[in-house]
């Protein structure tokens, strides 16, 4: 009996972008509302702002031994440094979701599927750039919707974020989903990478 099948998600950016919160919400969604086993870990520098920062979620129906991502199925990169640091660990045919404003030059390749979302822009239209992480979470949900229900994520957002910002967070989450729906219509789950989305 080898290790059980794992689905590995990594979210990376710099301190202050809410990277750790996204990991926490994802983990709660999978484990509390989907009843799956999941491990959410975080790694960070001493800086509370500006330093490199990543959060990971490993999901499995069975036992999870090694808690960190070995080869990511999904990489969400919200800063250029994060993209460069973690792109080598993205699985073949994995999903790459980037903030299109901070990560512009992605090499043409057919190793992984690229989705560009202006998370910072959408967030500032919705309530402030600090909601960038929840916009990214919405976009991420749509790309991995085979693995969990939208309601699980919405419940997890309620559980982990303060009630006073619930509405704007839900709005940011919905906009993230909508953006991916609008810009990546012909999106089959096994779609080959078709490069430039917008």
């Amino acid at each position: 009996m080898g290790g059980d099948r794992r689905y590995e998600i990594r979210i990376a950016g710099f301190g202050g972008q809410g990277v750790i919160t996204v990991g926490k919400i994802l983990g709660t969604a999978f484990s509390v509302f989907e009843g799956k086993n999941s491990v959410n870990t975080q790694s960070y520098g001493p800086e509370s702002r500006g330093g490199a920062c990543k959060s990971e979620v490993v999901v499995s129906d069975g036992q999870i031994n090694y808690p960190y991502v070995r080869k990511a199925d999904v990489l969400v990169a919200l800063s250029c440094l994060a993209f460069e640091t973690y792109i080598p660990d993205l699985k073949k045919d994995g999903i790459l979701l980037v903030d299109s404003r901070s990560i512009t030059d992605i090499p043409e390749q057919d190793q992984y599927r690229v989705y560009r979302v202006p998370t910072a822009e959408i967030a500032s239209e919705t309530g402030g750039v600090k909601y960038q992480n929840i916009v990214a979470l919405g976009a991420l949900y749509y790309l991995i919707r085979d693995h969990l229900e939208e309601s699980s994520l919405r419940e997890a957002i309620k559980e982990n974020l303060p009630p006073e910002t619930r509405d704007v967070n839900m709005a940011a989450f919905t906009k993230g989903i909508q953006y991916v729906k609008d810009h990546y219509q012909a999106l089959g789950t096994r779609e080959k990478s078709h490069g430039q989305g917008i």
Partner: protein
Amino acid sequence: MGKESEKHLLSPGVYYLQGSQACTEGAITAGCRVYAGYPITPASEVMEHAALRLPQVGGRFIQMEDEISSASVLLGASWAGAKAMTATSSPGFSLMQEVISFAIMTETPLVIVDVQRPGPGQGYITTSQEDVMQARWGHHGEGSIIALSPASVQEMYDFTIEAFNLAETWRSPVLVMAEETVAHMREPLTIPPQNQIEILTRKKPQDLGIPPHSFLPYGHDIVPPMANWGEGYNVNHVSLVHHEDGNVTKYDRKTHFDSVLRIKQKIEGNVDHISRIETRFMKDCRHVVICYGSVSRTAVEAVMEARRECGIDVGFLRLVTLWPFPETKLREVVDNVDTVFVPEINLGMMKHPITEALRDRCKRIVSIPTLGCLHSPEMILSKIYEVAK
């Protein structure tokens, strides 16, 4: 963590908590009602959760001015009858050693959680196992210590309860040697019904029908009963060498030797009751990986992969209790093995008691050191393949 947990113990069920929060919930479940702490990365979350939860269960939390005062609070609280805990990280753990030594000599039950970070000095703020020798030898003087090594959020809960039970049972300070990885990780945590959780408290002279005038605070048994302040037993807590009744004037070498030996043997002599190991795939294996804490999660993944992918007959042994060191248990399960691999997040520490215990049970001991991060499975696999292929 749902809202209904606000006012009392977490009701039975599955929660998604951080290791640090699970640790505090374990303490509360065990009956801990006094928490004193001081901010230090990566252990502050244990204290922050205690600040929130202690008053909700009728307990008291205080942020002290440093680690020495935080640990000292535990002495006073324990003597006054409370179960008390603090959590710190490596630099703070160094500051607490004098109190640990004092607690050993006065046989004071208390729990200290060390969320280890790299050293020496400021070192760094990520994960580490570099304090495991300090846990045993950091306090000045003779005596022994009990130290557990959790590897999951569930064990941060379970082992904190076990730590209090051990402290109360053996009248000893008990250390939970956690690691940043485990403290910051989030995982499902299953809280069983309260009546299924064993909660032990110190033997009291009242329970044994010993009246105050004939009570010997350091006598009656290898683990003396303990009277609390406020119960009319006129207890003097002293850490100078003392007689069973606490008298420190009539010094004599025999009493000195016997009392300190008893305090040490109380723990070392009961190693089989106190300490635990976990084993998998050990039946006549050719190699074995011996590990503890978070590294056990990487090691079991690597062992399973080596067996599955390359058919290498390698066993897995995990030290659940670091101290007292379970030498006899190791010798029972490890016999004429080729290589013992010891992966640690330090440059080789538990390797020493392991080497001493298995000196005639294997050809070689191979340490797999790393600093500041958890081994990846590849780091362990490459060493196994190097030797076994």
